[in-house]
């Protein structure tokens, strides 16, 4: 047993353990408000979740990548089933009270299937992409990966949970990249999303369409592909307004407040402004652990889930933020190294996908506390309170540790790295 522990990837274990402790301390601080609320004791429960996560990570570590690859279709099927089930019997809860993202049976909430689906998509994409002889070279090759990520993405969008839906697209993009897709094809595949985003300014959209036309002439893909991509971009521009109108008002407000929080400082911009004030007032060294006034007086919204990193900024200052980001960077680079040294394409893609999942969540969640990203309400790995996502994160860590261990056993990577 102990020899096994010694054979683990030290960098990954230490960085994740440090993040988990840092997160737990921040969660404890989140409960320290002037008028105590239920958040005060939430860290007890998170401690239990962490214990469970340890067990889950241990069990995952004992699962070989071959076993995992075999089980992948079942995991994916279950995840899809749960997502569909959620649409029918889902309930809202906590900071996501307005959407149906929780699976509850008899009033007892079990978890958010969207989080499990993220991992299932990573596994399924790994299985599919690893089995391809050549890396995807044409749009036709992207149809199946697009469906694997697209179906859960649409189901999640229906809840509605825009943040998680975007995560699925990000995972697809990262994994296609790691599978060796040509950068030009990646850009073309992603172009409709860019076109959709830029459609809110006619000039920007026009420039983008012109650029795309030039790129298409230069790269010379198949004619029908060019037509498809051009059509998709034009469609994106045309459909942007109806799509916008179909968003829930709170989603519209969040995106508007992202562009300019001062437009409506009372309602939609409130969260962003208060979070920015919290982070900014932290300064270099912060106001001291548990001493943040913005948090204490309840100006920080959802301080235990979405805006937990604002507490780090307010109480531990820029130094605390640097330490937190450095730990995240260490973990991400460790995962990238494991993905590079993996013994087979499936393991490599899995670990890279997991790294991509963490990366997306970190950048989105941390960026939103200082209005670098729109508010979408997706959790920060190892920090935010919540069982489902913590378990999924630990599953990812377990898989990565196993892959690292395999490559060492096979002599592909040196011991003690």
């Amino acid at each position, binding site marked *: 047993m102990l020899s096994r522990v010694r054979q683990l990837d030290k960098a990954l274990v230490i960085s994740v353990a440090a993040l988990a402790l840092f997160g737990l301390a921040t969660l404890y601080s989140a409960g320290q*408000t*002037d*008028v*105590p*609320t239920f958040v005060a004791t939430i860290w007890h429960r998170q401690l239990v979740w962490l214990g469970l996560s340890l067990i889950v990570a241990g069990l995952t570590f004992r699962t070989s990548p071959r076993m995992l690859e075999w089980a992948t279709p079942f995991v994916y099927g279950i995840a899809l089933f749960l997502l569909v089930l959620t649409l029918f019997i889902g309930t809202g809860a906590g900071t996501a*009270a307005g959407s149906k993202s929780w699976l509850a049976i008899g009033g007892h909430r079990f978890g958010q299937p969207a989080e499990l689906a993220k991992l299932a998509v990573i596994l399924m994409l790994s299985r599919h992409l690893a089995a391809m002889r*050549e*890396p995807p070279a044409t749009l036709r090759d992207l149809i199946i990966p697009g469906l694997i990520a697209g179906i859960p993405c649409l189901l999640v969008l229906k809840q509605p949970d825009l943040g998680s839906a975007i995560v699925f697209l990000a995972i697809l993009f990262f994994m296609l*990249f*790691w*599978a*060796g897709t040509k950068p030009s094809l990646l850009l073309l595949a992603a172009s409709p999303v860019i076109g959709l985003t830029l459609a809110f300014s006619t000039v920007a959209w026009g420039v983008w369409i012109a650029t795309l036309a030039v790129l298409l002439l230069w790269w010379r893909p198949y004619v029908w592909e060019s037509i498809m991509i051009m059509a998709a971009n034009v469609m994106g521009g045309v459909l942007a307004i109806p799509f916008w109108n179909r968003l829930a008002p709170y989603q519209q407000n969040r995106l508007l407040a992202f562009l300019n929080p001062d437009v409506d*400082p*009372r*309602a939609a911009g409130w969260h962003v402004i208060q979070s*920015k*004030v*919290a*982070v*900014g*007032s*932290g*300064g*270099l060294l912060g106001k001291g652990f548990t001493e943040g*006034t*913005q948090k204490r*007086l*309840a*100006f920080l919204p959802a301080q235990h889930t979405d805006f937990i990193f604002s507490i780090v*900024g307010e109480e531990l*200052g*820029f130094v605390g*933020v*640097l330490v937190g*980001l450095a730990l*995240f*960077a260490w973990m*991400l*680079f460790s995962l*990238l190294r494991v*993905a*590079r040294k993996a013994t087979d*394409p499936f393991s*490599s893609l899995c670990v*890279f996908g997991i790294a991509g999942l963490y*990366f997306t969540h970190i*950048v989105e969640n*941390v*960026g939103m506390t*200082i209005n*670098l990203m729109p508010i979408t309400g997706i959790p920060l790995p190892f920090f935010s309170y919540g069982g489902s996502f913590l378990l999924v994160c630990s599953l990812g860590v377990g898989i990565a540790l196993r892959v690292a261990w395999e490559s060492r056993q096979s002599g592909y990577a040196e011991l003690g790295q």
Partner: protein
Amino acid sequence: MNAFHPYLLDRRLGVARTAVWIVLGILVMSFFRTQILGHGKYQLQSETNRLRPIPLPAPRGVIYDRNGHVMAENVPGYTVSLLPGPEANLRSTLARIASIANIDSAVMERVLQRARRAPYQPALVLGDAPFNVVSALEERRVAIPGLLIQAEPKRSYPDSAVAQLVGYVAEVTEAERTSKFAKVRLGGLVGKDGLELQYDSALRGDEGLRFVEVNARGQMVREAAAAANLNPVPGTDLHTTIDLDLQQYIARMFPPGQRGAVMALNPNTGEVLALYSAPTFNPNAFVSGISPAYWRTLSESPTRPLLDRSIKTRYPPGSTWKLAIAAMALKRGIVGPRSHMPIPCRGGLQYGNRFFRCWNAHGHGDLTLTEAIAQSCDVYFYQLGIKLGVTSLLEDANEWGFRGRTGIDLPGEIPSEFPTGPEYYDRLYGPRRWTSAVALNLAIGQGENAQTLIQMVRLYQQLASDGRMRTPFVVRASTEATRASLDLTADQLATLRRAMIAVVEQGTARGSRLANLTIAGKTGTAQNPHGLDHGWFIGFAPADKPEIVIGAIIEFARHGTAVAPLVSRAIAHYLGIDERTAAQLQVTVPNDSAPAPFRIPLVPDTIRPVIPDTTRPSIRIDSAISRPPTR
């Protein structure tokens, strides 16, 4: 080349690492800009600019009657609340204002409890502060940190005659917030009963927000000048079909101290004109937090004033049910208006080994259907019930909806009770261990039959119109159209109406006859195992072209004849006819309820040899009465 060749992987790893570096670099730079360069600005904001959103309640929609009279409105009122702070501060502040605002320790505990439940919202101290208290508090504002006085619209109910119908508003409870009122903030007012509950989402409107600046201790410094208030959106007004004048008249005429309910319908549309339940209560007491003493009086009183007796109480329908039996028999062609029964009434009927009595021990003699309805003769209807047969009787009653709700747009209507079919008796007594004797009891509105007032009024609505069923409604008709109908021809309906006119002109309700108005109706007495019998009367007028049908039940009123004058006076009042004639009439006529056993006591050993099977009756009466047609 293999896409996972180490050379290619290294190249992609390089790209990925660079991307992570760049993104994290951007993040660090942004944090640097916010935390180091922008520190001064944000530090100042966090210390000074602390806005607290204070909810501004929206005025609820006004509830009107059909003529624009107000049944529920809003009046200006003041609320006193305290901005949140540490509990010790709140406690000392409360102690300071206790003498001015006249609050005792129980109220103080409730305020602290509110503050604990919604820690960042102002805790309500007084829901309805009188003006002198407000001005006294205002004078001492400096000494009372966190004091918040708001002018808020306050719900007011001008008339308690409509208390159960309109309902009342009160603070939302924790349980309601997890189910039906998820969007209401803690401490918000929601409809709890009646129309206020049924149409709450329309009446409620949207709350506004106002922002005040607070200092580091969470106490109000000043109104946030720059912050524009988010104005509340008032709720939608509700226009009902109620005739408030009629309702008030009924409330005045209702015998004081009695319990019961009165309901008036337009038979041609289903519009509810009045819906009165006695005793009533004062709904205004709920608006700004009901006092525990008054709540105890309401909830523990044996008269149960909060109960809407028109839709939430079931009574045995008694003789008012005879019209349903008569309608069934006419529809199936078993009798005509002049049909006689084989056995004339001699004060009772021997059936099997039991003697079923008529309410009139002297007997009514040989009667036609019309006369039997007018005199409410039990013996006639015993025999009609046997002719009809248990199966047909249950089938028709179920088809006509006597088991279920009418679907009126009011919350909490309870379904009427009636057996689904003969299998009910199989379950109750065991297969083949019961006899057609149940039909005798069912035929006179006793037995396993309990109807709400609204259900019985709907039957008479059908009799008063063209026989079609119209779902009663107060604001909006039910969307699901009921095609149900009594399926009677115009002649048959006219027959029943003539009989009901006879009830009022010569029969059991002749005490309520009006010289210049023809009222059709039927009395009823519901046997009550808990005490005196309940009295029914349901009538409509003008008898030739009915415009209003009114049903009334008075608990422990002994019999329906005492109820009939109330109904006839209300009808006369509604139709604008001088009701004084009726007001002076006070005639007591005998109880028309059969003193038969409430349930048929079955002693199988003694009965089975006599009546072995319902399909093969072999008792005396059957030799005289032809077998009911089997369908």
